[in-house]
């Protein structure tokens, strides 16, 4: 029997094991929606904006390790999802996005809701396809999933013109596909791995610098084995949090611009950097010319372009983190003898000293305002037993969450790293919740970030995704204000948000639950209360407005030259400014 393109689309999704589709309809994808309406295998979550659909698919992918799938219409549907595609591209998230297109006969005619979807998405996808003939549809979808999930993962777009979804053909789903220009390398060069093992044996002050690649390749076990076998401390990038147990004695936490003091010092003074699935981003290297001046660099990555892109590498190994680490552990297990711990002792002692000298710290506010760090720390402490998935938006609250959440397992941390997309957290959390309905999913958002995708509250309520969203509410674009404090003499250009909405009433208006903690003493209670509710909850927590996030390496600064607290002149200014903000807060809360 011949199937329509829309039916073929559904059959392909089923064969790829897709359980959830994040989607928003429009004229040219109606045929597909009509088919989706008549089946129960794929759960369709209707979002309120295509950007939300994209981020939900990302959250789903990050939490499950499988491809996230979304479906949008042509024209504005496509342009709205671009941010999510760009985000997924930067953070290597496996995503398959289907977009509708005007009928093939109208392509190029400036038809209603037409956009050049292929041209628009080219720089922000790993690959994209325009399906011009229904006979190509099934094999194209197979190829799309194959490209998105293999090698260095990434987003793939499949553009389906209206007539292709309506035309009929025989359905045959290929068992496998191969693309002659696409052959990712999985196994590392054996000789290079041997070299790496030798360098590790010789090193006095080695450091593992691990990135998101460890999570996507599922290499956490191998990483733990390597670290424990060789007693090498582990620095994690923002994307890698959870790849190594956060409370393990060898975990140094996050490195980089707002990383811990000791993680950055260990990096700077090391004699061997073992980079695994990380890409030497400028937020990690700081000033490249002074990055790890004494270190040899081993770089393990599946993407050859990441190697030697930003820093020089002594031992490059192109391959999948999991397979390379496994081989490395095998070689080292044969050579390592018991004295590794003693050998590393001076280096680990040195790091502990750095840790004692400048631990993560904040002062409680004398006026009793809630400090954002206190809130985030308490969220972590009160929820960690439930092994939650944590999403964040972008900004100060994101960095504090990265500092205070010591995640034990991978695929629990959903954050926008490379692109730094405000508005990412809430829909990403919903995507993870859709994948794991029974799990506790938290979102830590800023009041600025949350307002970039507020509309998805409706999706959370209607689709029953009981995420718990904490709004770290300082009525500022906090990170912008911090930079203005430090580098623009405190001129708060367009960073003060003045009147933020009453988030409790907003939640209620959408049919969600709204809660608020206004005093220090209410913080623990509100967290417990939120966790007990089986509905989407929005928790508004007004916090001290002028808190800055430290340590901080100024952009282009050197990794061992961190700012650790507010400069004294700034402190004076803040105590004067805080009064004004205090008055303002009252008007918001009683509104």
């Amino acid at each position: 029997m011949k199937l329509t393109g829309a039916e073929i689309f559904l059959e392909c999704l089923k064969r790829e094991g897709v359980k959830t589709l994040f989607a928003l309809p429009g004229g040219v994808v109606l045929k597909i929606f009509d088919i989706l309406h008549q089946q129960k295998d794929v759960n369709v979550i209707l979002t309120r904006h295509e950007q939300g659909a994209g981020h939900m698919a990302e959250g789903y992918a990050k939490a499950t390790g499988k491809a996230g799938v979304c479906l949008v219409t042509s024209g504005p549907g496509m342009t709205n999802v671009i941010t999510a595609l760009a985000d997924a591209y930067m953070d290597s998230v496996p995503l398959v996005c289907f977009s509708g297109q005007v009928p093939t006969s109208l392509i190029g005619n400036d038809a209603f809701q037409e956009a050049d979807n292929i041209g628009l998405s080219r720089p922000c996808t790993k690959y994209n396809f325009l399906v011009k003939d229904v006979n190509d549809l099934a094999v194209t979808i197979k190829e799309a999933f194959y490209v998105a999930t293999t090698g260095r993962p990434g987003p793939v777009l499949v553009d389906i013109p209206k007539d292709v979804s309506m035309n009929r053909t025989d359905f045959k789903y290929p068992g496998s596909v191969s693309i002659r220009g696409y052959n990712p390398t999985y196994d590392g060069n054996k000789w290079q791995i041997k070299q790496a093992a030798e360098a590790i044996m010789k090193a006095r002050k080695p450091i593992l610098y691990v990135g998101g690649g460890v999570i996507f390749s599922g290499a956490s076990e191998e990483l733990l084995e390597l670290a424990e076998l060789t007693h090498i401390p582990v620095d994690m990038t923002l994307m890698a949090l959870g790849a190594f147990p956060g409370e393990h004695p060898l975990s140094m936490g996050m490195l980089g611009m707002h990383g811990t003091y000791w993680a950055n010092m260990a990096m700077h003074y090391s004699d061997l950097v073992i980079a695994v699935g990380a890409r030497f981003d400028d937020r990690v290297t700081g000033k490249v010319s002074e990055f790890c001046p004494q270190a040899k660099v081993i770089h393990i990555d599946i993407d050859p372009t990441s190697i030697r892109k930003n820093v020089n590498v002594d031992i490059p190994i192109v391959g999948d983190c999991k397979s390379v680490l496994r081989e490395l552990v095998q070689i080292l297990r044969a050579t390592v003898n018991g004295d590794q711990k003693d050998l590393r002792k001076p280096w680990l002692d040195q790091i502990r000293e750095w840790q004692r000298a400048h631990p993560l710290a904040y002062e409680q506010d004398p006026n009793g305002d809630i400090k954002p760090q206190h809130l985030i720390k308490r969220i972590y402490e009160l929820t960690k037993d439930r092994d939650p998935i944590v999403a964040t938006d972008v900004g100060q609250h994101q960095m504090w969450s990265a500092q205070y959440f010591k995640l034990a397992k991978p695929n629990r941390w959903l954050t926008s790293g490379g692109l730094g997309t405000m508005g990412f957290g809430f829909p990403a959390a919903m995507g993870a919740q859709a994948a794991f309905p029974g799990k506790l999913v938290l979102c830590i958002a800023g009041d600025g970030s949350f307002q970039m995708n507020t509309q998805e509250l409706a999706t959370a309520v209607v689709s029953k995704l009981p995420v718990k969203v904490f709004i770290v509410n300082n009525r500022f674009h906090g990170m912008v204000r911090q930079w203005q404090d430090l580098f623009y003499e405190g001129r708060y250009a367009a960073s003060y948000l003045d009147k933020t909405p009453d988030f409790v009433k907003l939640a209620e208006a959408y049919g969600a639950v709204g809660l608020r903690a206004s005093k220090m003493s209410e913080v623990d209670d509100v967290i417990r209360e939120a966790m007990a509710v089986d509905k989407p909850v929005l928790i508004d927590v007004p916090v001290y407005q002028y808190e800055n996030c430290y340590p901080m390496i100024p952009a282009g600064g050197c990794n061992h030259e961190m700012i650790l607290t507010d400069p004294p002149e700034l402190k004076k200014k803040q105590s004067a400014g805080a009064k004004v903000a205090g008055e303002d807060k009252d008007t918001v809360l009683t509104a």
Partner: protein
Amino acid sequence: MDHIISVIVENKFGVLSRVAGLFSGRGFNIESLSVAPTLDPSMSMMTIVTTGDDRIIEQIVKQLNKLIDVIKVVDLNESEFVERETALIKVHTKPEDRAEALRIADIFRASVVDSTPTTYTIEITGDTNKIEAIINLLQPLGIKELARTGRVAIAREPVRPAATQPKRVAKD
């Protein structure tokens, strides 16, 4: 220094824009680019002339390889290669200059492919130096139009030293 990179790609729509987009998006230069199908019509060969230090060229080669429609990338500067470019030069000629134009064409072994009472169109093939040289000489006469193909190049086949080659012995 100029680098010549030869790229075998899928011969299908949109591939050129992927390659061009890679160069513009990452701030790499394209000095010239020529594209035509290979013997196998499902593939095309691009010859890209670019500039950059070793690190940039390494990135260009890696980034090109990463493109899914790219099948093979060869940095020709890593070995010996032959390069050629063709130019069509329409020279405006006053009566007293016509003989000079022909003489110049002759010196460069270029040929005249079109002629009117006031113009000659000269076809020249060679390496970049040769083309630049004839342009320099023709410019005083007045070049009306100029069309250049951009460079194409191919690796030289390695030649074994004469001593190791089998000798041909004449038989009677």
